[in-house]
């Protein structure tokens, strides 16, 4: 059963509180910051750039928070990630003259508070996932990272990218199928992956 409406109510309550009391922005930030950072980091690669862009995204969120109007489930997340998406695009425009780096050649982004052993495992997982992502089209990569790192639903992804929800669903479905195929090429991933995708 989808708990999307319940989540929306919760999110709406948080956002309204934050619009009236700056201190109440903290829970909103804590909910969205890891997601935005993960999405941005997966798109830009450089940890420093990711931190800077994420900060810029939230600065814009704060500047516009007072005028934000809830338009139904997912509208706040959609708004936040639309800002993030545009910041990533702007960043790409700024660095377009730099030499292109293949996605799977980007440096690993360390997760903090990990033991060396966990960090090493995560390193392997990151490389595997990144290699699989690199096999997708840019549009598919965008949707997949918005889905899995941003935690967005199809409708929210459609809002962020300015697409029809059915288009997103179809594209994502193909992308996830490709991802499964790509990831199952490695033995460790093959044992982990199954054929279900309850998030669709």
């Amino acid at each position, binding site marked *: 059963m989808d708990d999307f409406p319940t989540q929306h109510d*919760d999110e709406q309550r948080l956002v309204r509180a934050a619009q009236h009391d700056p201190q109440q922005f903290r829970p909103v930030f804590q909910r969205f910051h890891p997601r935005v950072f993960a999405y941005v980091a997966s798109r830009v690669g450089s940890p420093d750039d990711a931190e800077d862009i994420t900060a810029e995204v*939230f600065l814009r969120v704060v500047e516009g928070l007072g005028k934000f109007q809830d338009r139904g489930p997912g509208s706040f997340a959609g708004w936040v990630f639309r800002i993030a998406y545009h910041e990533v695009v702007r960043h790409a425009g700024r660095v377009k003259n730099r030499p292109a780096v293949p996605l799977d050649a980007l440096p690993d982004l360390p997760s903090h508070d990990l033991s060396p052993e966990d960090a090493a495992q995560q390193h392997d997982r990151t490389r595997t996932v990144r290699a699989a992502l690199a096999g997708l089209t840019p549009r598919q990569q965008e949707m997949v990272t918005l889905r899995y790192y941003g935690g967005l639903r199809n409708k929210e992804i459609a809002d962020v990218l300015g697409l029809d929800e059915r288009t997103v669903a179809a594209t994502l479905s193909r992308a996830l199928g490709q991802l499964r195929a790509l990831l199952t090429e490695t033995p460790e991933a093959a044992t982990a992956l199954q054929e279900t995708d309850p998030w669709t």
Partner: protein
Amino acid sequence: MDLTPPPNDPLGAAFEQAKPTPDPDRAQALEDALVARLYELKRQDQRKSTMQASLTYPRPTTRAWSGFITTAVTVAAFALLTVALAFQTPPPNGDNGGYAAPVNGDLSQREGSPTPTPFPMTLIPEQGTPTPAPFEGQPTVPPPDITATPIPFDGTALQLPCRQFEDLGASPQTIPWPQTAPTMPAPCGDGESFFILPDGSRAIIRPTALPFSTQEAARPVITFAASRLVTLDLSAPLDISQLSAGQTVVLYLPVLTSINELNRDSIELVPVGVGRVTHRNPGTDSVVILMTAPTQVEQISRWTDPNSRSLIAVEVIE
């Protein structure tokens, strides 16, 4: 909201495990900064609301008219008192308003100029001009002290007092501009500002002489049009002799984030508002500028660094 992928979504689990996480320290710093920014935006909104309320005040009722007239009479009385005080007899020679005479080798007055008189710029809002109400809990700066007789405005006073310097046994100083020596003295305490007079000289002024309220000692809440930034060429300053009673001037006030910026050839300034030079205020030897067109602060953050020092410049436009 739990964003962990459902247990039967191995693809999501794989992404979750490979998910980059932000630096917690930087995240915390960002969170704090954003909350602070929200507070600042809220204050700005309150200020705008206050301004708007005063500008769109409904047609007063009889009772409101009574209050309005009382206020107007009070303001007029204050104006008359101000004018009357302004035409009192000048103080005896040597009385420079309680400010010590200049000393200090490096920073002594310029040769050939008459003994400088302390010269704080006192900006007072024009009567009837809507002034943003202070925020709750925000201290209000007392009105400028206008108690002495006018003396001819000869444009020679370049020396400004700095009370805190006096308290420390130092004295008001005149510093030729541009200042290049790295031995520039420490500025006055927080809230005290440097001013650039039209002739390029540097001045220091106490925040209590400013017409605006302050949130903190070092945080002047000033009204200005944020849309216009100008660059004042400090190597070619205006001539103070051009400044005389009756002239309309634009006041500029930038912020220095470092005292070293005083050594730059030029600096970005922001117009504070339009004012009119009314007369010289001899008791403290200040120039009284009637603010005729203050506007709303939009970029207060540009100047609210407690470590910053403000400069002001005057541009004669009429």
